[in-house]
């Protein structure tokens, strides 16, 4: 089974380890570079006969309208889903959601479920929870299969096995597939098409016999009671169509008020995500369709910290996220460290704000380190299809992290800034202080700022201060 992120070290330590892995850095640079170029080509194409910025504004607007009216929208969604024959459950946290899914599965006497790739079920650790109840959860997305068979962790929202190259994947398939089902053929090569064919053969028997399917949802339309899943391989269609019972775990922020509101989002998501005009398959379903697909449909509406994020005036916008992962692909930090260093299923710039918002700043050292995992260059905001101003949220969260740690022993940084505040408040004090710049920097190199200087150079001290120079040269005239 897949590992968990529990107990991951804080970002600087995890990133330091990741940076030492040359294979990982090579895989990441190749993958993020490829996908960035594909996305940019399509954005340029949209601008030839339409307007990408206007499309982003519309997409952001649809999500913003839903969030600002979330209570009403959720009640509407519950009533339309119920009218369509679905059973709606509510879960305050991961444990409640997992218990609901497990009890439905057990009620049908199954020892396995097939799963559509879903971020939210990873967030709540559903696979591990089901395993503890004796139920195997089979991941059916190719990348998730690679991660699951490799007893590994996902490292990217869209392509979770981005840190693995083809020869590693071949090795995993050869050694692991046989233990959980149809083995990989002996003559397996590392051609992507051959590897994909092995996954098709391995999973087909699981799809055909599955009684219970588990999914997330990309969107939940309130006024029609419709769920939407966007995918590429057809594994999603298999899980949503063939089983008798379907359980969808849906974060409460996935609500879209109206059917028409899907329009800008369905145009933005695939272009931002895989760099395609449209993803190969999108499935929509409104509860139970007699004679077609699962005849028992459950929807679990999950909070798990989303209401914390909603209460944060600056951070609230992060709930607009449609999980496209464009921000990961343009981030200079993500491109070098990869996803594991973020210690969460939500890595990259969006993870650096979403995790603290969901869990609360000050909750632990790992979460608190994330808002600092950024150079604030702003590339993430530029590509975000729903205009999440990630840099502003990062800065605000840094302040919240500092606030959460007030009291106790002050950090070196806090002392330094306190000193600066004293010196800068009065010109005489500043003039006096400047005489000691050289000594101060030498001291700083040795002791106080070693955390800063271990990765950066402190500037050399000038031979004389500006004031001394001005006096000596009469402002450069002498």
């Amino acid at each position, binding site marked *: 089974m897949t590992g968990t992120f529990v107990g991951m070290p804080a970002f600087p330590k995890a990133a330091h380890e990741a940076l030492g892995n040359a294979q990982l850095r090579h895989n990441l640079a190749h993958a993020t570079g490829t996908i960035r170029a594909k996305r940019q080509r399509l954005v340029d194409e949209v601008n030839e*006969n*339409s307007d990408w910025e206007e499309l982003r504004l519309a997409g952001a607007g649809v999500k913003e309208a839903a969030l*600002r009216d979330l209570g009403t929208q959720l009640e509407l969604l519950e009533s339309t889903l119920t009218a369509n024959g679905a059973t709606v459950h*509510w879960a305050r946290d991961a444990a409640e959601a997992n218990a609901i899914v497990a009890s439905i599965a057990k009620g049908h006497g199954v020892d396995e479920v097939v799963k559509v790739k879903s971020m939210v079920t990873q967030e709540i650790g559903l696979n591990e929870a089901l395993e503890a109840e004796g139920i195997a959860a089979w991941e059916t997305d190719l990348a998730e299969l690679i991660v699951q068979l490799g007893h590994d962790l996902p490292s990217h929202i869209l392509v979770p*096995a981005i840190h693995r190259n083809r020869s590693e994947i071949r090795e995993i398939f050869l050694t692991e597939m046989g233990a959980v089902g149809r083995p990989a053929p002996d003559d397996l090569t590392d051609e992507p098409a051959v590897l994909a064919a092995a996954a098709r053969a391995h999973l087909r028997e699981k799809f055909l016999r599955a009684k219970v399917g588990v999914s997330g949802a990309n969107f939940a339309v309130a006024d029609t009671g419709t769920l939407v899943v966007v995918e590429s391989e057809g594994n999603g269609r298999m899980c949503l169509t063939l089983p008798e019972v379907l359980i969808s775990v849906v974060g*409460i922020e996935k609500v879209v008020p109206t059917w028409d509101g899907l329009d800008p989002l369905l145009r933005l998501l695939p272009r931002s995500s895989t760099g395609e005009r449209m993803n190969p398959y999108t499935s929509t*379903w409104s509860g139970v*369709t007699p004679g077609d697909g699962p005849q028992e449909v459950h929807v679990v509406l999950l909070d798990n910290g989303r209401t914390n994020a909603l209460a944060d005036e600056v951070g609230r916008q992060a709930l607009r996220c449609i999980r496209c992962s464009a921000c990961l692909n343009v981030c200079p930090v993500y491109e070098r460290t990869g996803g594991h260093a973020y210690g969460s299923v939500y890595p990259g710039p969006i993870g650096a704000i979403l995790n603290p918002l969901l869990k609360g700043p000050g909750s632990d050292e790992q979460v608190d380190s994330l808002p600092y995992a950024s150079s604030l260059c702003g590339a993430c905001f530029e590509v975000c299809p729903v205009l999440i101003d990630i840099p502003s949220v990062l800065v605000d969260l840094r302040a919240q992290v500092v606030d959460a740690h007030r009291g106790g022993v002050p950090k070196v940084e806090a002392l330094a800034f306190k000193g600066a505040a004293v010196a800068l408040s009065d010109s005489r004090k500043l003039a006096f202080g400047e005489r000691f710049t050289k000594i101060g920097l030498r001291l700083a190199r040795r002791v106080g700022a070693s955390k800063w200087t271990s990765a950066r150079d402190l500037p050399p001290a000038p031979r004389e201060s500006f004031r001394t120079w001005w006096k000596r040269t009469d402002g450069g005239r002498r």
Partner: protein
Amino acid sequence: MNARDEILSRVRRALDGVEPGYAVPPAPRIAPLADVVGHFAERVADYKAIVERCPADELAARVAAALPEGARVVVPAGLSVDLPGADEDGAGGRVFDAYELDAYDAVVTEARVGIAETGTIVLDHGPGQGRRAISLVPDLHVCIVRADQVVPDVPDAMPLLDPARPHTWISGPSATSDIELDRVEGVHGPRTLHVLLVDP
């Protein structure tokens, strides 16, 4: 308090002082396309689907030609083309289970809407399209789209679709980019998508 009421009250507390009724800016439309149907054909072919344009009176022959010799073919009720030798799902009250569908090589269906800009075919699984499973399990999907069903872009398609029905939006054959972002056509869904675009 039960989970439902607690979540809803947390939501209302979080939004205390926030005004609902946010004005959503309208989504932009694309500039008019000179040849909507031609654009659709190009964009579908871009996904490595097979696209053939054919006059209405040749449709039956072209469908037959798209099916490999000796292929086992399943069709939905209400298909406008008569295909001798194909098995109809649901005929005589008998619907095929997943294992039975897996034994078929090909499926022939119609569609509800074609979207030119994105090269997308939308099935609403009405008459001539069948249950979702039949156009999923067989490895070859021959899909008939009439030229008058093709609209320019996504916002033109939305009002034509009834959200109460299940929908499958298809943009090319099943595909993955999960291995080093190399695109591979054909994973779990039909590995071949053959579109017959029928001119009136």
